């Protein structure tokens, strides 16, 4: 064993000259077992993914093989695969790098998944604000088509598949799978009532699997190397590896691929630790929609189950790290402004609630709040939690109670002293402050 816990699999050849090219991917084994996989019984492919224990990387960690098995068979309807490449959760920054550097692993995953769920049509829904990843995925589809991996009668197997790359137009809610489907049908991107779940009635009311970019990108590696190999990484309930994206006040922010079950202390160490002369204040395991944690949780394994136990969630597995210069009040107010802006307005608890929370937090900072409101705001969040139409409402109700649990005094301090007086904004910055700029 080498001395590192890092396990570059998806990221293994990103230092190639053009890792995004089909030649580069093929030189590392890409597409080598595609034909064999397409000749395997689809149910066996589903069984392999089930046995591997792969869980969705979009945030909820739902078992992927199980999701695929919900698609009814021989129902006479077309089936669809929709790849969720909307990556817009604050803090999440792993799918965009994957599409920039390794789009062919995603495409091979799409082909294998479509075979498993008996779909002949796949869509890759990429958020609109990222032209470069959009170019790379379009090119990967074109290269795969030219190589005979997409189109009619793939590799002589009799299987037909069409893949459409679709750019969005700016709306976080379109990452929610049913809103994404409405958006893809050409409607306003608002969530649908569940059930029926997409696996039964999804795109154009037909059975549809919606999976995250990283989930689908993991598939070809599992198919090529087998269940036992995959389960050699991670833990019993959270097997495998993932692409961790560590951001914030660390010396070397970036992409670190490692098994689930690694700890934040270890990831922090690889990322060079907290920036010079500072110490950790709080961190979030995966996106702004999961509760924050502190230094007390650095040794908790980063798995779906352990993060819940610790009072948070693994979410997108893209840890954001903040040091002692950061105002918790400002940090979460900014997230709440985001949820307010992105609330689709379909249901009252979220539409009105996000305004109330944001307004109250701004009132605190403006010196107009009262101490009892610090607790009343928790009550308001509780009213939103579980009563919203989709998980965006729950997400919006998460940051404040989570922050209050560890940093209550900061909210009461804000009643009398603006956060900018207590926490110098330039101290939080990682670039030279305006005063340091000549001219």
């Amino acid at each position, binding site marked *: 064993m*080498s*001395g*590192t816990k*890092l*396990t*570059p699999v998806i*990221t293994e050849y*990103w230092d190639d000259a053009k*890792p*995004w*090219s089909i030649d580069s991917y093929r030189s590392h084994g890409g597409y080598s077992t595609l034909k064999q996989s397409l000749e395997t019984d689809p149910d066996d492919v589903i069984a392999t993914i089930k046995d591997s224990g792969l869980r969705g990387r979009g945030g909820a960690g739902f078992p992927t093989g199980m999701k695929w098995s919900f698609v009814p068979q021989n129902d006479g309807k*077309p089936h669809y695969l929709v790849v969720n490449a909307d990556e817009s*959760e604050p*803090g*999440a*920054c792993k799918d965009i*790098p994957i599409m*920039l*550097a390794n789009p062919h692993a995603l495409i091979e995953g799409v082909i294998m998944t479509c075979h498993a769920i008996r779909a002949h*049509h796949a869509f890759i829904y990429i958020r*609109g*604000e*990222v*032209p*470069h990843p*959009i*170019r790379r995925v*379009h090119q990967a589809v*074109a290269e795969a088509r030219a190589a005979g991996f997409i189109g009619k009668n793939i590799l002589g197997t009799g299987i037909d598949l069409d893949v*459409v*790359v*679709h*750019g969005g*137009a*700016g709306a976080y809610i379109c990452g929610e799978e049913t809103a994404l489907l409405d958006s893809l*049908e*050409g*409607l*306003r991107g608002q969530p649908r009532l569940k059930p029926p779940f997409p696996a039964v009635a999804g795109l154009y009311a037909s059975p549809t699997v919606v999976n995250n970019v990283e989930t689908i990108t993991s598939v070809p590696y599992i198919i090529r190397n087998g269940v036992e190999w995959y389960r050699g990484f991670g833990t019993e309930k959270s097997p495998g590896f993932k692409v961790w*994206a560590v951001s914030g*006040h660390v010396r*070397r*922010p*970036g*992409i*670190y691929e490692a098994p689930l079950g690694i700890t934040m202390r270890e990831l922090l160490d*690889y990322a060079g630790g907290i920036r010079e002369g500072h110490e950790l204040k709080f961190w979030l395991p995966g996106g702004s929609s999961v509760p924050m944690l502190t230094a007390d949780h650095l040794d908790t394994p980063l798995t779906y189950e352990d993060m819940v136990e610790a009072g948070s969630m693994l979410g997108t597995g893209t840890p954001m790290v903040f040091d002692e210069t*950061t*105002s918790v009040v400002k940090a*979460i107010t*900014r*997230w709440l402004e985001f949820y307010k*802006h992105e609330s689709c307005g379909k249901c009252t608890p979220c539409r009105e609630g996000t305004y109330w929370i944001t307004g109250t937090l701004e009132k605190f900072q403006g010196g107009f709040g009262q101490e009892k409101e610090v607790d009343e705001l928790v009550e308001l969040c509780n009213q939103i939690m579980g009563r919203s139409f989709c998980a965006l409402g729950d997400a919006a109700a998460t940051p404040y109670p989570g922050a209050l649990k560890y940093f209550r005094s900061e909210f009461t301090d804000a009643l009398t002293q603006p956060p900018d007086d207590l926490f110098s*904004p*330039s101290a939080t*910055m990682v*670039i*030279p402050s*305006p005063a340091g*700029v000549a001219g």
Partner: protein
Amino acid sequence: MSISEQTLAESRELAGRYPKARSGIVPMLHLMQAEVGMVNSDVIEACAEILDISTAEVVAVATFYTMYRMRTEGGEHHIGVCVNTGCGLLGGDALYEALAVKLGVGHNETTPDGKFTLERIECQAACTHAPVLTVDWEFFDHSTIAEAMDVIDRLTAGEEVLPTRGPAVRGWRAAERTVAGLDDGLADEGGGVDELMLAGLKVAKAAESGVDGTVKK
């Protein structure tokens, strides 16, 4: 100004990519916006006609998404500054303020010469590279204020400007065509895999070759 025949033909091609044409509305709006500079009544009518739906239905869709400009034309270059927590507090707020002063405009406003539109944007899925500036939606990662000022000066002078990850910027309208799904032939340009994306791989490779890659403090 009505929509050109070429754009109408390309719009029909976009709609034809889907099992149901209406799915093409979001890309079509990007494409027509690239020609007109905004989503105006010409765009709305052209979309409605191609998809055989009412103009009210097109408006309902277009107003839902933030990338469509419903009121004013966008400038030649779109300047975005991420002000979500991960960037805003780490320098994005200061970047935005400096750019607003330099350009003399506020959020979603365009300079009088039509050159720049400034926008406070949300998380760009590049938090590892905070604070993030975008020009025509290409990444200018970990941008300092001095670098942002230089980018504006060079664009004003008509010089070539390279993002940190992506091809040289070509203007907002060209980017809108790319987002719509038209091939611009630039997929191989502009690298895109930088040191931060290789951070873990480097440590792992160093460890494998016997050099201890973990950090000594």
